[in-house]
């Protein structure tokens, strides 16, 4: 098959998966088999695009002329391919995890759950392979809508409230800021194609460019730039597999991916730098990085702490993109990958703790490492990757971002990154310490004997933790791809 056909197939597969999941709704085992089959096929299809992309090809296809002169189009480039690899690869892992989690917790509406999950991955592929801003916008909005039923899965009042916040922030920012930004770009450039060097290069004056950049950056609410970050903690009412794959990987990465696409292919790194750049964006991102870390430090609910950690880590990517140096942009692209593996491991572990021990708070985790050694070991690996220490993936991207910040002589950024590293250590290491070194508190009475989570869940988190280690040991291919992005 040609590259173009593979790209279209990759987009179509998850949606075909929805049909299979719905059709097999009455047979849970077959239904989950359909999800697995779709996920594995999707991963293989995306992977088979790799050699083409690495060789410098940009396979793509025009799907449909949506508006006169404006088509829905796919175009696979290195950054999008990396994002698609991460999303489709982790879909397989998280499906294994989901099956364990959803069955062990006796969740209802599982057909809807797996169907929406597939739709969310389809939207992620659409975003990753989007050939122009319109296509990206279409799938971006689709992703918000199909993840809403997942966020509100439990149908409780709390879920409804969380869902309202989720929609209000994500749809609100995309309608009020992002849509006008897209229309404005269309009017200014007469095109919406992503172009190496920047679609808008040389077309805008400094003050207008800054306004447009602000519309984009705050309009892409999925990047969770403060003050539009509150949807992410609100989304934590979802079942944990959703938080793990979607709100640590697919949805939030779609956000920072869109930020990178806009900075690199719409504005152009060099032309944005020439226009006086994005100093304000660096400041906002730096503030987000540090402030979210403080909130995480104070959060006792484990998933809430992880959510704010994600807000902070997404801030790294935006911060890196705003520095506009090749090293930092490469670091941003890398962080998109490394954070995915670290954070999904942490969420998997949180879900395992909930499933096996029914605990959701950090303060309840004393001594849990003895009953759940695999889970807490995986958690420790994820935590160290978040902090950005060797020998884990987080170190690689942080190294690039920090080097980029120093290259740009942006001491605000350097300060924020340093402070955040310390804060990360301050809110993650105590959990590991409690789990393994503090003896379990007796006397609360509600402790019951429990062991590890179901084996599918443990296997999933062990695998992602192992990948986080592998990326540190063999970072070459990822770095090469990321640098090709920064090079134009």
């Amino acid at each position: 098959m040609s590259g173009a056909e593979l790209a279209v197939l990759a987009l179509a597969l998850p949606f075909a998966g929805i049909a299979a999941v719905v059709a097999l709704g009455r047979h849970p085992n077959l239904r989950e088999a359909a999800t697995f089959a779709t996920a594995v096929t999707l991963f293989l299809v995306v992977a088979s695009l790799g050699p083409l992309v690495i060789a410098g090809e940009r396979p793509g296809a025009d799907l449909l002329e949506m508006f006169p002169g404006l088509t829905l189009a796919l175009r696979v480039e290195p950054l999008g391919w990396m994002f698609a690899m991460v999303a489709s690869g982790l879909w397989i892992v998280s499906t294994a995890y989901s099956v364990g989690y959803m069955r062990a917790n006796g969740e209802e509406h599982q057909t809807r759950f797996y169907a929406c999950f597939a739709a969310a991955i389809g939207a992620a592929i659409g975003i990753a392979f989007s050939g122009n801003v319109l296509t990206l916008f279409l799938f971006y909005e689709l992703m918000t809508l199909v993840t809403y039923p997942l966020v509100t899965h439990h149908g409780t009042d709390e879920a409804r409230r969380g869902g309202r916040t989720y929609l209000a922030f994500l749809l609100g920012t995309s309608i009020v800021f992002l849509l006008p930004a897209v229309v404005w770009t269309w009017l200014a450039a007469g095109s919406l194609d992503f172009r190496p060097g920047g679609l808008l290069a040389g077309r805008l004056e400094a003050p207008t460019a800054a306004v447009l950049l602000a519309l984009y950056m705050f309009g892409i609410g999925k990047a969770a730039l403060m003050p539009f970050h509150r949807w992410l903690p609100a989304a934590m009412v979802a079942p944990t597999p959703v938080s793990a794959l979607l709100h640590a990987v697919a949805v939030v990465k779609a956000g920072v991916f869109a930020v990178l696409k806009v900075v690199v292919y719409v504005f152009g790194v060099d032309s944005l730098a020439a226009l006086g750049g994005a100093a304000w964006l660096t400041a906002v991102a730096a503030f987000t990085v540090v402030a979210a870390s403080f909130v995480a430090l104070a959060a006792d609910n484990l998933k809430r702490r992880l959510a704010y950690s994600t807000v902070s880590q997404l801030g790294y990517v935006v911060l890196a993109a705003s520095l506009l140096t090749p090293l930092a942009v490469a670091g941003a692209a890398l962080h998109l990958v490394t954070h995915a593996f670290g954070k999904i491991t942490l969420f998997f572990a949180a879900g395992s703790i909930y499933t096996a021990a029914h605990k959701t708070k950090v303060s309840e985790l004393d001594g849990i490492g003895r009953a759940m050694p695999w889970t807490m070991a995986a958690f420790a690996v994820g935590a160290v990757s978040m902090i950005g220490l060797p020998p884990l993936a987080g170190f690689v991207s942080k190294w690039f971002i920090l080097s980029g910040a120093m290259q740009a002589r942006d001491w605000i950024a350097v300060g924020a990154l340093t402070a955040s590293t310390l804060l990360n250590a301050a809110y993650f290491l105590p959990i590991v310490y409690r789990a393994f070194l503090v003896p379990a508190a007796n006397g609360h009475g509600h402790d019951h004997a429990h062991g590890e989570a179901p084996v599918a869940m443990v296997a999933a988190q062990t695998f992602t933790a192992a990948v986080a280690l592998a990326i540190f040991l063999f970072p070459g291919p990822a770095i090469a791809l990321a640098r090709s992005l920064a090079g134009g």
Partner: protein
Amino acid sequence: MKGVAAHLPVLLVVVPLIAAPLIVLVRRSLFAWVASIAVTLAVLAMAFALLAQALATGPISYAIGSWPPPWGIEYRVDAANAFVAVLVALVAAVVIPYCRVSTAAELGQERLYLFYALLMLCLSGLLGMLVTGDAFNLFVFLEISSLSTYVLIALGRNRRALTAALQYLLLGTVGATFYVIGVGMLYVATGTLNFADLAPRVAALQDTRPVVAALAFITVGIGLKLALFPLHAWLPNAYTYAPSAVSAFLAATATKVAIYVLMRLYFGVLGTRLVFGELPVGELLIALSVAALFIASATAIGQHDLKRLLAYSSVGQIGYITLGLGLATEAGLTAALAHIFNHGITKGALFLLAGALALRLGDTRFPTLDGAGRTMPVAAFAFVLGGLSLIGVPGTAGFASKWALLTATLEAGRPALAAAIVLSSLLAVAYVWRFVETAYFRAPPASHPPPGEAPAALTVPALALTGLVIAAGLYATPVLAVARRGAQALMGGAA
């Protein structure tokens, strides 16, 4: 065949007009239904043929009885009114099959044939308003469509349909009277009623008092018919208490035709220089539109009945159309015409779905709709899709018009209006999510029937129109391209 093709402009109006008395004579509901379907399909084919011809060869002029204009009555079909005629015919073709079960359940069988006869009259009146090139003839068709509409609304099951119809009758008559007063003034000042003949004479009179007064009377008169905020008082009750099929047909077509008439009179008769240059009518329209976007949409959120919510939503959505008209640019008119079509099919689909919900669940008040997502999963899901089009989510028809409208406001250098458009969309999110939370987050009450859908006679037309909403959103190029041609025809129509 060539002979028939030449008479399409008049056949478009005459075929449904003749069908009405025929239906009354036969007095059989099945005959009435079959005849109505045949008529609407014929009308739809004719509307498409006229649109194709207008796009290919430019405006078509047809002299009734071969009396050349301005002495005889002229019908004039261009890309703009043929486009709106396609919308009207399309919605009619979807609504009539729906009536057989829906309206029979609401009205009973024995007088059903009268209902179809009225619907044919209404269709004829609306199409006549679109194609006529004569100011007085337009008044006649306005009354034909209005009078039949009053009765159609009064047929609603709830007794309040009677007061709703009376309210509309009073305000509608004021509107029609204002229109005819305005036309009378123009006739006194110029001595002609033909649009094309009027235009140069009105232009020569500049802003003399009769012309300005005529402009004011016509704007208020037609403004009442199109439910221009704040002249929309009749609309919520009329849409709420009318039979389901009537709500769908009227919401999708009646106000849209009135908006087209206003466009035609502004650009084709009174002239842009007077309306948008010397007098600030455009700015006035824009101000009222923005008020509609926010006030009517916010009012929609708090309604206790789904049909009423949709009605207020319509007032708000009409604001988007009149906003495009108020810009008085080609891009603005394109957006307005595109939204006439896109909102027409969207609101038509939503009212049809509301009727399907009402048929199985009893009514459309919010407590009744609790858990509708579980009781009627397909209808509820389709309703959400239609709601997304009201919001303007990409991939739906509503997005295409929103895109066109944003382009038009930004091109015109009016970013504040663009901001108003996107901010008011958030109100649409709120009222659509009112339904989502009712249908999906509440348990169905004990009074609900077991899960299942309405009969296929209702579900299939409603889903077909919903499918069109999505298709017209993903592939919006035809609608936008035709709308642009229509805008060009309107703007060039003054000569």
